[in-house]
């Protein structure tokens, strides 16, 4: 998935911006992250109507940036996950589950 980093102050961003939120520099680089480490998880039982009735939200740390992603299964804190993004979702899968 694409994330952004300021060349000037090294702040990282999930959302694309024209200027750095921290130092106002316009030198922002796009880069890819494909995996991360789970910092925390929350299981949700009241969900939006376009999504499953229950799922997990994971707080992920990867290459200097923190963000959230969704998983249908529980993945523990400290576990490594692979990240997938398409037009409608940012999801992840435990690397232990991959062949």
């Amino acid at each position: 998935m694409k994330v952004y980093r300021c060349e000037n102050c090294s702040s990282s961003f999930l959302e694309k911006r024209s200027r750095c939120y921290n130092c106002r520099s316009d030198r922002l680089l796009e880069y890819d992250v494909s995996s991360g480490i789970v910092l925390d998880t929350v299981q949700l039982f009241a969900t939006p109507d376009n999504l499953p009735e229950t799922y997990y939200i994971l707080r992920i740390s990867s290459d200097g940036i923190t963000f959230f992603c969704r998983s249908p299964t529980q993945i523990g804190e400290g576990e490594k996950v692979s990240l997938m993004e398409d037009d409608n979702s940012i999801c992840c899968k435990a690397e232990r589950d991959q062949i």
Partner: protein
Amino acid sequence: MRVDNTSGSGGSAIYIANSMIKSGYVNTVLIIGAEKMTSVPSRRSTSIIASLLSERERKSGLTLPSLAAFMAKAYMREYGVGMEMISSVAVKNHRNGALNQYAHFQKPVDLSDIMKSKIIADPLRLYDFCPVSDGAASLILTRDDMAQSFTGKAVKIRGISSYSSNPVISERKSLLEIDCVKEASDKVFKETGLTRKDVDFAEVHDMSTILEIVESENIGFFEKGSGYMALRDGITEISGELPINPSGGLNSKGHPIGATGVAQACEVYQQINGLAGPRQVKRHEVGFTLNMAGFGNNAVAGIYEAFS
């Protein structure tokens, strides 16, 4: 004009109306906050409310209740507090709401009711959140020299401030610090020359129980990590040193989104004039309101006092 700022719409409307009057652009403004939320299924309203999140965070399936759950877990981890302590906010606020004829829920609940209720976003349960409510509130704001022509019980806006935070939650430095709450509060105290000790009671934005505790710290009423102690020690009860949410707050009074900020000001009006009946606080000269949009996208802090 229409002011649409999600959960902060009411506070923003008051902020704008106050600015328009102070600038001399208008003399008097009628502010109406209203929301009809029960006409759609709850999963649809969850989806609509989640639309205020940034695009990519929304894609992750994030919702406001899930953010509150992350905040609660962070608070418990940081300060060694149990879930029962956090949920005690709902016990207090439902007790207050039971004394408020305008509240959505007018029935006290105890901790065992709460701990048996359905989990919404683990570890937070049904009673840890405000209900989905319909509701409306209104008030008239006018120039100081015209106030007496409307009522003998006018309340003055001593100061009102607003501040915006990064709406991308995962980019914030800490889950336990809501910049806009801290900055809007700092600004309004600086603007008025008052201190936190001058505030007699407060209405804050308890969309979730954990938010009342964290906001009370971010506003500066209590030190970091001691908001729960104030709750535990009864300081935030109606009879306490600093009553918080004597109306029942969003948790019991309800949170019809666009009406909430206006309803907070209405509660302050009633309290300052001694018209709050069984939920009347003892000291009621200076009231504070904190209305927040989204999960801290922006906030409006207001300080009110009797008109003299």
